[in-house]
């Protein structure tokens, strides 16, 4: 089963190496990993996806949390979440197909961020399914190159209104900052 996790990391040298070296030495498979700064200075947030049986998913979370520079790990299996991915796709265009390509892009709400005589670069955001579908639609026209950011995720704030969206015993934690109560000195 695919698990989607969020991890909060201190911005310390080699923190990403510590995390990925742990994945490697303990044999955890990582499908995608995406890191960025948070609203709090000195703390980064990472979303990563791992194909793992239930027991291993718990191990991934706990082993990661043992690292000194990892403040907290959330397994999003516990509450509903939203996730998004962004992709840039460079596709070849010809005078014959440019209208058709633009029509498909519009249907996907893709933005055309670079217009050339021989190519377009589209930016698409969405969940994994939408992104993959867009790439498949573009493939016959001739994709030059693509880059995906990997998925990023947040717990749904609406979980607080709808208890059925929370899958563990207890109240939704979606309206609290995930690091509330986590010591960081």
């Amino acid at each position, binding site marked *: 089963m695919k698990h989607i996790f969020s991890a909060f990391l201190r911005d310390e040298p*080699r923190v990403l*190496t*510590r995390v990925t070296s742990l994945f490697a030495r303990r044999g955890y498979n990582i499908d995608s990993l995406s890191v960025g700064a948070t609203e709090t200075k000195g703390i980064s947030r990472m979303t990563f996806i791992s194909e793992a049986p239930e027991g291993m998913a718990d191990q991934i979370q*706990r082993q990661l949390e043992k690292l*000194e*520079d990892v403040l907290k790990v959330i397994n999003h299996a516990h509450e509903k979440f939203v996730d998004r991915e962004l992709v840039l796709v460079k596709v070849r265009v010809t005078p014959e197909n440019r209208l058709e390509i633009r029509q498909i892009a519009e249907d996907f709400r893709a933005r055309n961020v670079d217009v050339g005589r021989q190519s377009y670069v589209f930016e698409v955001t969405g969940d994994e399914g939408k992104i993959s579908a867009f790439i498949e639609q573009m493939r016959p026209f001739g994709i030059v190159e693509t880059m995906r950011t990997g998925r990023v995720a947040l717990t749904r704030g609406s979980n607080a209104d709808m208890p059925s969206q929370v899958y563990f015993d207890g109240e939704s934690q979606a309206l609290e900052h995930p690091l509330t109560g986590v010591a960081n000195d």
Partner: protein
Amino acid sequence: MTGSQALLKTLEAHGVRHMFGHPGGAIMPIYDAIYDSPIQHILVRHEQGGGHAAEGYARVTGGLGVCLATSGPGATNLVTALADAMLDSLPILAITGNVATTLLGTDAFQEADITGITMPITKHNFLIRSADDVSKVVAEAIRIALSGRPGPVLVDIPKDVQQAQTDAPIVQPKPKAARLEPKEKDILEALELMKNAKKPVLILGGGACDASEAAYQFAKTSGMPVITTLMGLGNFPASDKQWLGMPGMHGSVAANRAISQCDVLIGVGMRFDDRVTGKTSRFAKNAKIIHIDLDSAEHSKLIPAYLPILADSAAALEALAAKISKLETPEWWANLEDWKARKPKRDEWGAASAIKTISNALTSDDIVVSDVGQHQMLTAQEHPFEHPRLWLNSGGAGTMGFCLPAAMGASIATGKRVIGIAGDGSSQMTIQELATLRKYDIPVKFAIINNGYLGMVRQWQEMFHDKRYSEVYLEDSNPDFAILASAYRIPGFTASTAAELEVAIKAWLSADGPAVLEVRVPNEHSVFPMVPAGKGLDEMLDDDPKNAQPEKIAVSR
């Protein structure tokens, strides 16, 4: 003040009294500051020895062990000791020098990326880039090493940082964090499980070494049988009739049978290592497992815990002891008593009887350190450990060469004599530390059980490789250990028979300062009981199939 002085002042503020190390180019400013420091530095002859000495120091005191090494090869020589400390959860602070920050990453002379190298074998590590950070980082490193589940922490300090001036204040130690108390609900659930148990068993691991009083209370009130793992020996007195021995590959018949048949198993401060469990699918098949540990990653890592309890071992056992009542399990005890009587036959003269003879000459307060191999398992089986923190061995990593330097560290820490028991193979991996014993007149009584083989490997080759003894024979090239000792100006004794041993032990133990005793034993003895690799605990061989009466070979299919 320089970065080096800030380091030593911080160590002093944290109560460090001894450290073990070896100087070199990139750590010379620190050694210059050591010249004026009240902290005693013990000069070892190889950095690995310094690392194991720090482990011995930490294990007997329950506090921090400190070791130092220079950059490059000095630092990489610490790697084995750090890996060892990581697996046995020992609080070690390793300080390494490194090339100047301007040279980092340029393949400079004696440069090694030691923070990169030790990342998977330390609890955490740091590379300090400014003298202003030295005190803060070292204090944090010590806090990390000692807090929660202890472990080794490495601090790498480039040479220019050691030399640079700083006004940053010396960071004082933080008060110890409150111990992790168990949840009331978990304790009640555990008590309910135990109340209904017909065949309960308690296992104490190395993480319960500061919980031995609570464990004793709990065991006495409940009347429950107690097993101590290799790392937990001494956490419950071996002289007590409720003690069943050690579990696992070379565990006792009683301990392994009890685990295989119990209905409730309480594991405290242990991690269900593969040498303890044997084949996991056959481990405690009928039991509900209550696992008390303060590292949540250990819960259900290898053996699914029916009830994981995240708590300090002592806190949880105190809470349980306060509420448990006497369990009436006479049938279970009848079985246990029967199994306790089943012990492998020991030859009149062999490694086992030699170790037993040495053990008989010791007191229950003696610190005993073993190396890794057959003698380690035999010492664990034969010596009755009565108190915690008196037994040191390399349990998780199985590091040959652990004994001599660890015994040295334990003796420096306590000022007492320490008994080392090693093999002819393992002792030679760190034998150079005899010089350190001589230099500081450290009273380590070092016994070498010499069977002329890498005995444990030979045993496996005998049992599983058709006696094809590949590269395990040492007798043709071993030194005469008594002469070797005398070359280091340490008294050396030799015994080849039981009668000689009785005499030699007296001279060996009564010698002033360090002393070496070589005991020459027959070549081809094996350690039993044994659970063959990949088998379940219930498939254990109670005794050597060569010795055993047919009906005593208990191999269940």
